[in-house]
């Protein structure tokens, strides 16, 4: 195998590959990236056995072939090469070495045979559809903060992507929760997605997927089966197993009858929460919200370190209410709001609270209160 490639194109491809590779793994081949050169392009493939990413880049191929080398080492080398360099990779097939040349730099790297590299079995996808990158970006960006990290509830360690009914209309919906807060984000159902099985997309996949979604104009080809999900952007394909588990019935969690309504400027609110939470050194900082006529008082009382209070002008005309929340959770949901005011709907100080952006029901958040 021998080919030459622009440093920038190679860097982009190998960066994606090395981020999939697990830093600590016991199977040597999984630290490697599979490089295949043919025609006028090379493909770089990396996997952790749950996720597989394939990057295709244009290259000048002199001799077709394939080999595998350490993804991290190749990434480090390419990253340190000067911008605009032309990189030539040569594998003689006999010595088990790959040379990387660029300008006056010359590296020789140990390879492992291509035959040892695990290729993820392809699946029969039940649904294939195209979705604009910004739509997927919104679905996952606004839900991923609520993904659980608790291993015992593994079925919460991802975003539940499925087709749902929203007031008589079918939508593509993403839900994530850790039992303390929940995010439910809807988007118009793309053509061809109606038969899609609901899948739990693992946290790591969500992180890798995000790198495919930066281009506003690109269409992402999405394929979904019971066990796998695939996202394909031009030049790059991400395939992932989904979490084998049942996502809980979240609809019971979303309060429908909360009547006490607070409307507040989200960024003012977030800044005030952040300020008052400063005095508490505890890991779970409780912020108390005291609601009265068009007035919200945020307060923190940490016996060991101090107290803080801040008053905000808000729209509120229901019965007075005292309710406490984890400051971090409040900040996270408030920061999801970017266009209109944040609307909070409360029931009592012990019941889940709902938050949405203005009257937009396509993104709702639920957060559990804390005793204060």
């Amino acid at each position: 195998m021998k080919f030459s490639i622009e440093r920038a194109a190679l860097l982009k491809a190998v960066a994606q590959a090395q981020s999939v590779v697990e830093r600590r793994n016991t199977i040597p081949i999984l630290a490697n990236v599979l490089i295949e050169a043919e025609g006028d392009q090379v493909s770089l493939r990396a996997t952790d056995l749950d996720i597989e990413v394939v990057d295709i880049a244009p290259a000048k191929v002199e001799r077709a072939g394939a080999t595998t080398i350490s993804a991290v080492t190749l990434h480090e080398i390419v990253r340190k090469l000067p911008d605009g360099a032309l990189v030539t990779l040569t594998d003689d097939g006999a010595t088990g070495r790959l040379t990387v040349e660029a300008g006056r730099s010359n590296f020789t790297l140990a390879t492992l045979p291509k035959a040892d590299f695990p290729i993820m079995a392809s699946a029969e996808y039940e649904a294939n559809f195209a979705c604009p990158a910004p739509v997927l970006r919104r679905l996952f960006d606004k839900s991923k903060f609520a993904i659980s990290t608790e291993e015992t509830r593994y079925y919460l360690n991802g975003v539940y992507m499925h087709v749902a009914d929203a007031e008589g209309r079918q939508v593509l919906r993403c839900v994530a929760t850790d039992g303390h807060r929940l995010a439910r984000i809807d988007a118009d159902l793309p053509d061809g997605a109606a038969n899609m099985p609901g899948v739990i997309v693992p946290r790591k996949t969500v992180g890798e997927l995000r790198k495919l979604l930066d281009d506003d104009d690109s269409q992402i080809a999405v394929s979904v089966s019971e066990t796998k999900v695939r996202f394909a952007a031009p030049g790059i394909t991400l395939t992932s197993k989904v979490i084998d588990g049942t996502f809980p019935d979240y609809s019971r969690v979303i309060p429908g009858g909360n009547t006490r309504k607070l409307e507040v400027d989200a960024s003012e609110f977030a800044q005030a929460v952040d300020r008052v939470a400063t005095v508490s050194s505890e890991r779970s900082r409780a912020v108390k919200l005291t609601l009265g006529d068009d007035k919200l008082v945020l307060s923190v009382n940490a016996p060991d370190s101090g107290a803080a209070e801040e008053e905000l002008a808000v729209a509120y005309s229901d019965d007075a209410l005292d309710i406490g929340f984890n400051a971090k959770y409040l900040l996270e949901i408030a920061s999801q709001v970017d266009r209109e005011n944040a609307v909070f709907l409360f029931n009592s100080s012990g019941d889940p609270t709902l938050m949405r952006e203005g009257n937009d029901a396509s993104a709702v958040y639920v957060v559990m209160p804390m005793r204060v």
Partner: protein
Amino acid sequence: MPALCRDCLETFETGTRCPACGRPRILSHPELFSLSVAHMDCDAFYASVEKRDDPSLRDKPVIVGGGRRGVVTTACYIARIKGVRSAMPMFKALKLCPEAEVVRGRMSVYVEVSRQIRAMMEALTPAVEPLSLDEAFLDLTGTDRLHHAPPARMLAGLARRIETELGLSVSIGLSHNKFLAKIASDLDKPDGFSVIGKAETLAFLGPKPVKLIWGVGAVTREALETVGIRTFNDLRRWDKADLHARFGSGGDRLWHLARGEDYRRVSANAPVKSISNETTFGEDTTDTDILEGHIWRLAEKVTDRAKAKGIAGRVVTLKVKRHDHKILTKRLALREPTQIGDRLYHTARDLFDQVAAEGPFRLIGVGLSDLVPEAGADLSGDLLDAQADRRAGAEKAADRIKARFGKDAILKGRALR
């Protein structure tokens, strides 16, 4: 050289027999009357209590331990001659010493005796740090004026009092810090009194193996041996920085202990770091129903202790011992600390799922660590388990019933499995 008669507590300058009572149990050491940190350890505590309460056992080898497949908790000195050791499986102990009398432990009696001993210790100094039922550190620094006698004399008096009033013998180590006091109490068991002075510390430790250091088990010992450290002398040849580089913060500790330096205080209320309970089964089991019953009872015991102390914990640990004695532990950090038995149970139960396939098991344990005051505990509910709050409320109500009518006044059905 200052000397002390261990029988009549007479202090005198020199001699091999007591000038007052004429008996030969003399303790003499150049620093005898200036040392004040002690470690006291009851000799074969449980077995000695059993012999005291049942004189027919007096001249027989006695093993205290549980069940037909339990382990040796304590062996008396007669059984120890045959090679029986604590923590040895019972069948092995009985092979070594078939004529031994095996006695089921009577924990409540031991607790009571331990309480009596502690009261006697506390008459000497408020700085008593119990390590277990039968072991404690005592700091008598500055008590000379109060007692009009040096610590060594008070300690010898304590040992004599425990012997005459409770019929038990103890071993005492006296030195200038906890590390050395603990080593000293082990030097001359049973009924011993050993002293390690400041002047002799380095010479005393030098040729001793590093496994004397508490916390240096098989693994650390091997790591130390790989780099040629076997004795305290070997250890002392290492730079502090090199030890730190090789063994982390544990290396700093080794450097100090190598020189017999230990600055820990004897603290009457050493903070509790974790609370755990475990149980060994009559026979190995894979039965989830039975195991769930055990997990519940253990979770309840642990949280009862947490509630009694007014603390809560954030990290839940589940431990199981497989039939082949391999120990598996799983732990999970909760979002917020808890002292609710139901919450501990459900978390431990979830953790059990991760090891359930490894059975059959012979032991299971549940623990709570990363402890904090209870004020910060159980503040938020669970969106996905709407009943959790109600169960926690029910548990609090049950706690009030138990406080009034006794521990068995109300039980969960699960506790009977």
